[in-house]
């Protein structure tokens, strides 16, 4: 079995699951309880926060635990909108954001906010100039992802930050769900970024856990109100087992990150080198510094993406159409659409996404399977 769908989700690491189980058994207290059982869980919670903060190079007070990437995106966007509505109701994002961002924007539009969806060029990049042109006096938020989940395009975060230097009151949110552990430390530490959202299950932590970095002194509203957990910013009894498990998973994924990234890049390069020998192939994720090392999106025009996915499935190789979130609905990729890729090519797109568990041997096996599939369909369609 070859699992090449790591941008959809990753397998929980054994040692991470071990932490989850042990914390559930031995640290089951509510961190808000005054007694020792609760305080013990609180210690673990705060040490987890400290560890996450240190790994991200920020202060512990700037880390908030959430239920995952979708909540993080929703929270920062709507929380900023609620806080800053009196100062302006204009938001800027891009056409290639994750649905968690896009649909938060759609909801805000119904509430009277105005949203500018920046276009991307043919390669899949937002231009800082178009951002600069879109900024208005009533702009309150800019939300641009770090690494696109469908084709792996790394957005020009530093250049966007430079544009925003002149607009200090605008909140700058970066959806970093696909960027963690993939060699983007410098990008994520860009000082102008005010908010980052992360999801645990993309780096071998369990589902249902994630975190948000919120720069100190940047004010936004909570989405979940209640018992006042997370400094009154995200109520709900803390998911201590998942939080500790995620802190551990983060440490593991960032240990020897360079080596792991190099390995994923080597796999991607081997696959690319082979795909590029084929006629009629369209590659959306070239080997370039502004493309992520772990995502490879391509089309065999004429063959529907789902068909390719199932053909690989028969060989026990698991890939996806462009993104798991939209793959079942059968709609063509919003990123490729934004890139003005013709429909028949966009519908044929599939995505291979790697992580540190994958090997070059798997790449060779994939190549063999690919050739069989490619030759089979070439007879029928090309």
């Amino acid at each position, binding site marked *: 079995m070859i699992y090449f769908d790591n941008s959809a989700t990753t397998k929980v690491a054994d040692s991470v699951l071990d*932490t989850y189980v042990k914390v559930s058994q031995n640290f089951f207290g509510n961190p808000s309880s005054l007694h020792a059982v609760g305080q013990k*869980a*609180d*210690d673990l919670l*705060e040490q987890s926060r400290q560890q996450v903060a240190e790994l991200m190079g920020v202060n512990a007070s700037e880390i908030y635990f959430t239920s995952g990437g979708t909540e993080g995106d929703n929270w920062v966007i709507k929380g900023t909108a609620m806080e800053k509505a009196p100062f302006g109701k204009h938001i800027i994002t891009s056409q290639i954001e994750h649905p968690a961002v896009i649909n938060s924007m759609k909801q805000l539009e119904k509430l009277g906010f105005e949203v500018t969806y920046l276009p991307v060029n043919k390669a899949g990049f937002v231009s800082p100039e178009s951002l600069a042109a879109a900024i208005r006096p009533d702009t309150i938020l800019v939300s641009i992802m770090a690494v696109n989940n469908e084709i792996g395009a790394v957005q020009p975060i530093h250049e966007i930050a430079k544009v925003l230097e002149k607009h200090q009151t605008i909140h700058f949110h970066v959806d970093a769900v696909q960027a963690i552990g993939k060699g983007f430390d410098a990008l994520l530490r860009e000082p102008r970024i005010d908010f980052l959202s992360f999801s645990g299950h993309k780096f071998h932590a369990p589902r249902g856990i994630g975190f948000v970095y919120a720069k100190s002194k940047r004010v936004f509203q909570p989405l979940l109100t209640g018992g006042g957990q997370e400094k009154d910013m995200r109520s709900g009894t803390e998911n201590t087992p998942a939080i*500790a498990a995620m802190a*551990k998973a983060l440490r593991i994924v960032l240990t020897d990150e360079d080596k792991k990234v190099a390995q994923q890049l080597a796999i991607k390069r081997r696959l690319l080198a082979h795909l590029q020998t084929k006629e009629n192939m369209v590659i959306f994720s070239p080997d370039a510094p502004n493309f992520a090392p772990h995502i490879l999106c391509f089309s065999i025009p004429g063959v529907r993406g789902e068909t390719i996915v199932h053909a690989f499935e028969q060989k026990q190789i698991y890939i996806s159409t462009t993104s798991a979130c939209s793959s079942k609905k059968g709609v063509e990729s919003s990123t490729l659409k934004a890139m003005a890729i013709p429909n028949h090519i966009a519908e044929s797109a599939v995505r291979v996404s790697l992580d540190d568990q994958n090997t070059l041997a798997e790449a060779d096996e994939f190549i063999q399977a690919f050739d069989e599939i490619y030759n089979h369909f070439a007879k029928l369609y090309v």
Partner: protein
Amino acid sequence: MEYTEIMARYGELSTKGKNRKDFIGRLNGNITKALRPFTAIRIHPKRDRMHIVLNGESAKDVMTALDRVFGIQTYSPVIRIEATDFEQVKAVALEMVNEAAPKAGMSFKINTRRSNHEYPLDTNDINLALGDFISDARPDLVVKMKQPDVKVRVEVRHDGFYLSYLTVQGALGLPVGTAGKAVLMLSGGIDSPVAAYLALKRGVAIEMVHFYSPPYTTENALKKAKELTAKVAAYAGPVTFIQVPFTEIQEEIKEKVPEGYLMTVQRRFMLRLTDKIRAQRDGLAIFNGESVGQVASQTLSSMAAINDVTTTPIIRPVATLDKNEIIAIARKIDTFDLSVQPFEDCCTIFAPPQPKTHPNLEKTRHYEQALDVDALEDKAMANLTISTVQVGDKFLGQNADAAEISQLL
């Protein structure tokens, strides 16, 4: 710049006549303790200065540690160069000037002292040779004898040249321990750790006395007091922490004393107990963090009614400071953020809504007679918990086993 030693100059203790030897010995001991983590260094105490040879340890880290040792007036990071290597002396002198005078138009001066009179060049020769060399390399600078921007000090000793240009103010004060020993009443608020710091600054070795009233106060309040002690220990070395069980006494007072006098009587118990502990521990005085007029127990009338229980000197270092001045010191010694963490302490829990700001001494004594003072205090004294707190010790948030947590994470 690779500094080879730090030269510390003694402050006030230079003026202390025949006690000087004891003072230097104590300072030497305190510096040794403060620099214990730096295993490679060697300390050479001399009559009016101390040479701390770094042997490769980081000058910056050693200087940070020295900043907390009282009795040092100033210190300078120094580079030692072999007597035979005058070319290297020139190079280092130039490097120092470059570092300290980066801009054109700034002024410098070479100041040579020579204790090795066998060295072929005399003071003037050396001043001229180095001055010329630097002027050639940096024609944009000017030489100035009076108040130059940069003064490079060159000392020629038998074992080589010693070059320095930086002089940093030390922690001042007197070496801790030279003024004797006292106990300090540590509540957990902002003021008492500052009082501790100021006591230490005048050379007083202190032991902490803390009143603990479970279940009225949480264990976190006790841990906070200990963690504050750990902060103060940065200036003191390891500090003895004496925990006094106070619940029973407070309950007894609450039951038998009229509300307006609860606080005054309670404070008298605290002071009497502290005085007994002081006698037991061979202390000479009691320090606390009272500031005149700050709260009901700190009016002059209250102080008089409370102070009535002892003739031991009670020293209140922050007595006449404004809250803002106290906070400024608390921030400097890094106790402020800890002090403002909200845990009930033994002073607030039994505070009546309207305590007497001007308690009457006679009435206070009268109400106290309803209590069996001796029996209550003997019991408390028999149940003291004494521990030692080191700098950097953590107490708050240590409910879970650290090893267990680190394995999980």
